[in-house]
């Protein structure tokens, strides 16, 4: 019988491993660390984890290789990628490859706790889904999603609607406030485009699924977060964007239709 642990951190920088151990440990979570992906795979054979935090840029087996190995071993533990800003594009690709979320480095203790909190909730929610029906509403089939966080839908005029997924809202467990960027601003795929503060005072950044210029902000939704929670895929959209590299960026998004097979 595999022993149940909370978090496995894989990073070649020991100082980061130790920081995660301390911060998450202070919240009562059990954390194991590994300085390379191959050793982490061995740990996964021995123990069961609720969440994996993994660096993308590592010597020998990198984040992508690790994801592929998990897939081969049929390990469904949710994986959160950590990476520097220089490789946001890689991070977006890792979401396409099966990671559920990513955390840009450097991060603060609060940012780490928010991501971990969501990751653990994600594990619970998706597990429940298998046994007793879906605990969340999946995104409409014509939408594309970035990880499980945000969705984008191409409109007829060529503009793109952007919003957050129901699963993301369920993982943050109740919105206290929403902070949106202003109209005419540029947003970049994989970078933060909105900040949601949850009822438990955690601050959650929303990664933008598509790069472009913001044409319109759904101010009604921002002032009334309940509207977002009620209908996240239609009335609760956040931005209308003029995309700058739609064709290219859609390649790295997951079509929601694939969730329904």
């Amino acid at each position, binding site marked *: 019988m595999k022993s149940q642990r909370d978090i496995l951190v894989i990073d070649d920088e020991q100082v980061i491993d130790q920081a995660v151990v301390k911060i998450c440990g202070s919240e009562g979570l059990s954390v194991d660390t590994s300085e390379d992906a191959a050793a982490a795979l061995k740990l996964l054979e021995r123990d069961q984890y609720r969440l994996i935090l993994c660096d993308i840029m590592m010597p020998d087996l990198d984040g992508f290789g690790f994801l592929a190995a998990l897939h081969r071993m049929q390990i469904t533990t949710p994986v959160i990628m950590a990476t520097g800003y220089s490789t946001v594009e890689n991070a977006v690709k890792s979401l396409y490859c099966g990671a559920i979320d990513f955390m840009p480095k*450097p991060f603060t203790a609060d940012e780490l706790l928010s991501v971990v909190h969501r990751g653990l909730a994600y594990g619970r929610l998706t597990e429940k889904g298998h046994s007793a029906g879906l605990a969340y509403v999946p995104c409409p089939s014509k939408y594309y999603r970035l990880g499980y966080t945000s969705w984008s839908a191409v409109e007829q005029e060529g503009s793109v609607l952007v919003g957050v997924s129901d699963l993301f809202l369920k993982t943050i467990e109740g919105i206290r406030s929403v902070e949106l960027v202003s109209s005419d601003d540029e947003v*970049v795929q994989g970078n933060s485009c909105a900040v949601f503060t949850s009822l438990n005072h955690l601050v959650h950044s929303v990664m933008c699924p598509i790069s472009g210029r913001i044409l319109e902000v759904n101010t009604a939704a921002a002032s009334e977060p309940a509207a977002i929670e009620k209908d996240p895929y239609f009335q609760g959209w956040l931005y209308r964007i003029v995309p700058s590299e739609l064709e290219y960026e859609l390649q790295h998004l997951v079509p929601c239709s694939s969730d329904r097979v």
Partner: protein
Amino acid sequence: MFKKIGFKLTVAVGMTALVTISVFAYFNIRSDRRSLLAEMERHANQLSEVVKSSTEYDMLLNQRDRIHETIKRVGNRHDIKRIRVLNKSGEIIYSSDSTEIGKMVDKNAESCTKCHSADRPLERLEIKERMRIFQIHPDSSRMLGIINPIYNSRSCYESDCHVHSKDQLVLGVLDVTLPLSEVDKDIRRGQIEIIIFALSAILALSLIIGFFVTRWVDTPVKELLSATQHVAGGDLNYTIKEKREKLSDARMQLFQSDKLASLGRLAAGVAHEINNPLTGVLTYSSFLLKRTQDQPEIQEDLKVIVRETIRSREIVKSLLDFARQSVPKKSEADINEIANRALSVVESQLSLHHVKLVKTFSSDVPKVTVDANQLQQVFINLVVNASDAIGPEGGTITLSSTLLSLSPIGITQIKKAQCPKRHSLISADVRIDGKPSIRVKARSNGTEGFVYLDPMYGMKGHQHGISFDVKKGVQVMCPECSASLMVEHKPCPECSSPIFAFEVPSKGIVESCTRMECNWQHWEVVDASGQKEFVELKISDTGCGIAKDDLPKIFEPFYSTKGQKGNGLGLAVIWGIIDNHNGTIRVDSQVGAGTTFTIRIPVKP
């Protein structure tokens, strides 16, 4: 001169023309000469046949007087040299020259050699062989002789005179000689004409080629050469008329893409390397901050660490954003507070350099929507620059902030401009006061040139690459597609000259007067919005100042006067940040007296 490409090209083309035209002239002269001679031969042959047949009847009747008379008359024509009839033994029986009659002709004489050169006289002669061209003396004109043998026939030996017997085959020869002097004159005239034509054609061709080579090859090459020498001599601002656009376009692109590519690589490398240690600092410090909430004295210091680490993170990110040409993260902030924070970072450095700080912050400055981290970076950079300019002797740096309400004239920058066909008119190569100008093409009185308009609405810094007088008519058009920008039936309200207009996408039309001396401009959308509020921040120093020549260049990337000390990115990044905030940055400087940077950020973006 002989080494010049233009000269070489002209000589090469001239030589080719010389050879071709000479060959052509040679064959032309030869065929001319042949056809003229052939004509003459035909004429001579005809004449000899005519003489023969006109005397035939008299021969049969043996009327010698009549024959004499006929030959004499015909032979005395000016275009006939001589006609004579010889008998078989070579005696001249009839001749247009009566003194010859009865004389014997030497069988070796030119008229006889055709038949008598062989041992036995020939009895039949081909028509070609009956002709001969000869000269009596080497200096006399040429003659054409034709011998026409008179054959025996039944009527001859059966006639009553019984002069000829039946067994004779050839009775004699009719010898006609024509002067060739006229024909020769024609031939010579033809030759001279063709030679004159050939020479003038070669000359004209060389001149034309020479002209165009000079114009299209030589002059531009010369300009380029002198430009190269200027640039090599360090004058990087040297411009070449006409070609300036394309050249500097290419240079700028090369420069930009090269620099940006290496900068991008550098930034990505630095970001990755620095991210891990920064993560260590940030996670531990923020964790410590969480754990020590009951110890306010530690909290303050920890907050500084966390805040500055987050700022480092943003700097790393903005370095990447610079490479990616990305945009700031804006939120409401107090400019005074940002400036104070910036000063607290560099304060110790300033006191070390004996720099006195004077702050005159106005308290009524409203909050503005800005990226506080980026602006803080801007202020720190400017203050450090000011401190560097002051040097070891010490001096004063003054920071002041005020709220300004300005009319849009002179403070609104036209950042986008397009022609009716949507070609951008913005020219980054010609900058006016550091900002990309608006380039239009003007045609007047047959000449064409570019006009660079001051991008600041209502300002007068236009640069005219062409000088013209509106009274002689002027056309302003798009430099790319030549679509006219002129506005019909709407003269300038100040000087009644014609006006032109261009579109600022999504911000209406800007109209402008064509007269060089008139600075009238009208931008409906901006004029209608009325006064605009700005927060102005001035950073002045009492340092060494910036030379007048350097002022327009200081916001260019990689321009640095600090030598090894600076990397030249500072002011270009600052300019980019302020520009991204829709703000302006201006520099005023006097060598020896000091420099002032004035930043204006719109209160409502």
